[in-house]
């Protein structure tokens, strides 16, 4: 797959953000995933050329970080938190049931390419446990059934909206572009904070 003139212009604008261009390597890798879905050899070569690095240097960085994928993932990448707290609260049962439901394991992708699955570590939403992330959007307070419904919806092209996020769930590639710093203009959508985030504030207003 080739990169358009517009793609290249965006990559140049990413590099221009930093005092030293090597710092742009991470957003550029996110951007390659936005265009191609995963980190391809072609993407690595392009970044190396842009940053005047060896491809081995770019590969070394790419393979260090788990969010950069060396194989295609689904249009909807489902991460089930299996760190201690979420696992204990139900994450283990959620992972087991959705894995059986989809017939795929950790890092697996469904045959239709719609859904992939990953066991993820703590995602900083423990007061909403058990937590599932889809394309790195928050799905709070999940159950085995809610996650089955979620992936069924995703496979039918009708995924539910994140609990704290935009009005509709964006694809893996679309969200990868956001992480590269390409705005999708959706910051205004969704709640300011979920109920647990506001609990202390509510109690203090009640004088408690």
């Amino acid at each position, binding site marked *: 797959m080739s990169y358009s003139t517009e793609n290249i212009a965006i990559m140049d604008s990413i590099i221009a953000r930093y005092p*030293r261009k*090597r710092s742009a*390597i*991470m*957003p550029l*890798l*996110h951007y390659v995933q936005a265009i191609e879905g995963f980190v391809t050899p072609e993407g690595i070569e392009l970044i190396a050329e842009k*940053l005047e690095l060896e491809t081995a240097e770019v590969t*070394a*960085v790419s393979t*260090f*970080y*788990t*969010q950069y994928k060396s194989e295609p993932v689904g249009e909807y990448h489902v991460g089930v938190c*299996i*760190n*201690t*707290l979420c*696992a*204990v*609260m*139900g994450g*283990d*049962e959620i992972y087991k049931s959705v894995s059986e439901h989809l017939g795929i394991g950790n890092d697996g992708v469904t045959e239709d390419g719609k859904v992939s699955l990953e066991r993820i*570590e*703590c*995602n*900083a*939403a*423990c*007061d909403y*446990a*058990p937590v599932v*992330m889809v*394309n*790195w*959007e*928050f799905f709070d307070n999940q*159950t085995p059934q809610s996650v089955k419904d979620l992936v069924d919806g995703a496979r039918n092209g009708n995924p539910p909206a*994140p609990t704290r996020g935009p009005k509709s769930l*964006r694809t893996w590639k679309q969200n990868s572009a*956001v*992480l590269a710093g390409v*705005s999708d203009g959706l*910051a*205004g959508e*969704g709640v*300011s*904070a*979920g109920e*647990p*985030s*506001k*609990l*202390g*504030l*509510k*109690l*203090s207003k009640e*004088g408690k």
Partner: protein
Amino acid sequence: MSKLSPVLSAHWDEADSFTIDAYRRNGGYKAAKTALDMDPDAVIQLVKDSGLRGRGGAGFPTGMKWGFIPQNDGKDHYLVVNADESEPGTCKDMPLLMANPHSLVEGIIIASYAIRANYAFIYLRGEVVHVYRRVQQAIADAYAAGLLGKNINGKGFDLELVLHAGAGAYICGEETALLDSLEGFRGQPRLRPPFPAIAGLYARPTVVNNVESIASVPAIIANGTEWFQSMGTEKSKGFTLYSLSGHVKNPGQFEAPLGITLRELLEMAGGMREGHTLKFWTPGGSSTPMFTQEHLDVPLDYEGVGAAGSMLGTKALQIFDETTCVVRAVLRWTEFYKHESCGKCTPCREGTWWLVQALKELEAGRGTSADLDKLLDIVDNIAGRSFCALADGAASPIVSSMKHFREEYQRHLDLGSCPFDPIASTLFAGALS
């Protein structure tokens, strides 16, 4: 009177709290104006006087960190905000940035001015796209309002602020690994000295601060040091976010003066879930030694938690009831440290693998009590023997659980299996059984 003191979270119940209009409506960006009218050294002194200490885990005095930056050295200085929140249990910075990103942007303007930095970075963990959007928008709106960029407020101060997404590596929350990552390398900790204040980003003087630390600065400038010192305890001043998660009725965020106790916080969270009792808890994430029932009245400030044998850490209170197998909990945390070990130091890279293997056997009830001693022996050989604190963090849950629950490890061995039903610990236990 409420025991809580919402400052950073005071407006999270407003539907537009994350916008620049709401932030200004609630008094935002006045502190930046005040600070830019002050001498930079006076700003550093004010933050020193307030007693603000780092909210990311270590508790180092923030103003003192700023004061370490050499002045008039002719070099570029940098401010880097650590928003790589990933310590298990820690969930305060992400809701803060989602609901109130401008408090961080304003804090960055003030801190950068104080340390004479013209470039600042926010290193945000990559697995939170909506938080990224909110911070990105806040930065764009601040530029449009003339609060970032060239000649801010007509004071001749220039500041560029760049938002940088990480890509899923816990170790990048360690400040020197974060700097390597931001420079475009694999995120691996550096040997210190030199400390970042002397040779940080691009080998230039750099301050690395946690999100909550920097976001607390505008309120201190706006309300004064006396106001800040009226909250908290003798050596732990001010307010902070406590995050309660796990087997409590109502988990959530509670912003309170430092020194509140778990007993008080638990009451606000509605107590333990119905019919269950507290078994163990972490005061500040999984890297802080676990506590039990007997620590309910420990003041949750830097000194109080330290004196009781743990660390305040990130104030991530993960609460587990009597249905939870402590060996399973510790195994899972250990698997996390193994997964996140960057591989640079042999004791950590190899040792966390050994620990996982040993704990897997113990959880399955295989082995003898000699294996419990072996576990502690491995821990002795990795803690304190690496560049960074990840290996120490891996040791904490093991050592503390063995101290409080050695008989539970032994019970696994006596039974030849785990005595707990994992379904009983889940939130939907009733629905599944």
